[in-house]
């Protein structure tokens, strides 16, 4: 049973209580030890000028780092979606495929994506979308040159499993009652899949997409800490640490949180729209 939803203003105020407390704590800490904890003003100065190249940091601007991190996630995540959803639907519908695929999946699933980073670098080296498309002319296309396949592979790994498992589960949860009802309404096998199994699995698939995107966003930051990277939010955090310019790290962390929040909210709005029927079905 869902309680009566509070007004938007109420929810906004309630949601801002803890962040406000944190800001207060932060302000207090920075006034005590200004060398380690940057002040609110310093961090704000970084966030307010996203296009400015950091003067004493070997890094592109905050905006460029955000764009490159987002691009890496977008490509790795898209690969994960377009591989995990079809595989999940196949696994759920074929016992043979399930018996072949699932043992390996269960074995591979708990392996942290970051654990693959060294192997991914061996496999893909520093090849990137840019170098694949333009070879040694890649320096002309610096942005695409920054999308290293090693990182894309890591993100794919991080997002793949939750999407796969949610898709399998969504199909498996299709109620026999609905399948039989559709059979009695003259649906063919193919139509059963398209008109009963897919729509009934959709809410679960969308949940998987949300979890997967959250993981992809988490993994990219860690992947960008690896040596050889020259851009990205994770890279900016590492370099700011190296030269003790912590305001950049703080700004990045805040931005990561805000963007993750936005991605989750967007996907949730989508799944509420698509799964409107499910919201009150209990």
């Amino acid at each position, binding site marked *: 049973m869902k309680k009566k939803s509070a007004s938007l203003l109420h929810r906004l105020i309630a949601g801002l209580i803890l962040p406000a407390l944190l800001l207060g704590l932060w302000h207090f800490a920075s006034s005590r030890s200004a060398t380690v904890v940057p002040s609110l003003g310093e961090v704000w100065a970084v966030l307010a000028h996203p296009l400015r190249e950091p003067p004493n940091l070997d890094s592109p601007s905050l905006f460029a780092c955000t764009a490159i991190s987002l691009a890496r996630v977008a490509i790795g995540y898209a690969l994960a979606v377009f591989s995990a959803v079809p595989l999940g639907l196949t696994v759920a519908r074929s016992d043979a495929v399930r018996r072949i695929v699932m043992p390996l999946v269960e074995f591979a699933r708990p392996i942290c994506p970051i654990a693959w980073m060294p192997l991914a670098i061996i496999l893909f080296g520093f090849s990137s979308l840019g170098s694949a498309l333009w070879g040694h002319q890649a320096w002309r296309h610096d942005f695409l040159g920054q999308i290293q396949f090693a990182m894309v592979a890591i993100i794919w790994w991080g997002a793949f499993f939750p999407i796969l498992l949610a898709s399998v589960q969504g199909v498996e949860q299709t109620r026999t009652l609905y399948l039989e009802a*559709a059979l*009695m309404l003259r649906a063919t096998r193919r139509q059963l899949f398209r008109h009963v199994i897919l729509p009934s699995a959709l809410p679960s698939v969308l949940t998987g997409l949300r979890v997967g995107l959250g993981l992809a966003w988490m993994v990219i930051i860690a992947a960008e800490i690896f040596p050889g990277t020259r851009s990205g939010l994770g890279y900016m955090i590492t370099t700011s640490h190296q030269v003790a310019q912590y305001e950049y790290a703080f700004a990045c962390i805040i931005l990561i949180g805000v963007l993750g929040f936005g991605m989750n909210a967007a996907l949730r709005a989508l799944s509420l729209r698509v799964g*409107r*029927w499910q919201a009150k079905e209990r």
Partner: protein
Amino acid sequence: MGAAITIDNLGKRYSADDGHTVQAISNLSFQCNPGDFLCILGPTGCGKTTLLRLLSGLAKPTEGRILIDRQPLEGIHPKAGYVFQQSALFPWLRALGNVAFALRMQGMSREARNEQARFWLDRVGLAGFERAYPHELSGGMAQRIALARALIVKPSLLLLDEPFGALDERTRHTLQNILLDLWRETRATIVFVTHNVEEAVYLGQRILVMAPPPEKSSEAILIDQPHPRDRLSEEFVASLLQVRKAFEKTLCRGY
């Protein structure tokens, strides 16, 4: 025109995973003429639902055979409609989409099928509820939509599995009358499963009282009264008593 049903020595055995078998139906024979309204009455666990599943083709008999219009039943019967015990409406489709579902499967255009679906929604008294989702409807409304959804393909055989079992009495009476009207119009053969004696006597031309195996099911009881029936008339009450006696016998033997 309705379908003729012949059931000959029908039996159905289920095997559980542990090798244990359950005899759901044994040695059942009866006939049903085109356009008949047959009620199957019996206590829980006597195989009523199994019988409907066999008649629809969703399940296959282990013994005996089913003839529909003199043809052995193979797979899902192409002219059978089914109304399930619980609401089996697709929760992701609105009322209109649910009713139009079968026509959509046939590849009919959206306008044509929606027009027919609106007609059938109107026939079950739900005009104006096209855009409602199943979870927004009461149990009675949901079963009306289930009825419209089954009838849109003009079935010659309509199978109903305790469709009004979960409804309050007044709603149930309304839906019984709607069903009788639709039966009169479509002349479909109806097989209606219920555990409610009064409902069986109000609706059925013939009532088959089923008993759990190994007991033998009784002969069908004829209720020779025109519709609409008066629940308070003496002959209705007399039939009620007659059927209730047969029904009680199956209960006593079982327990």
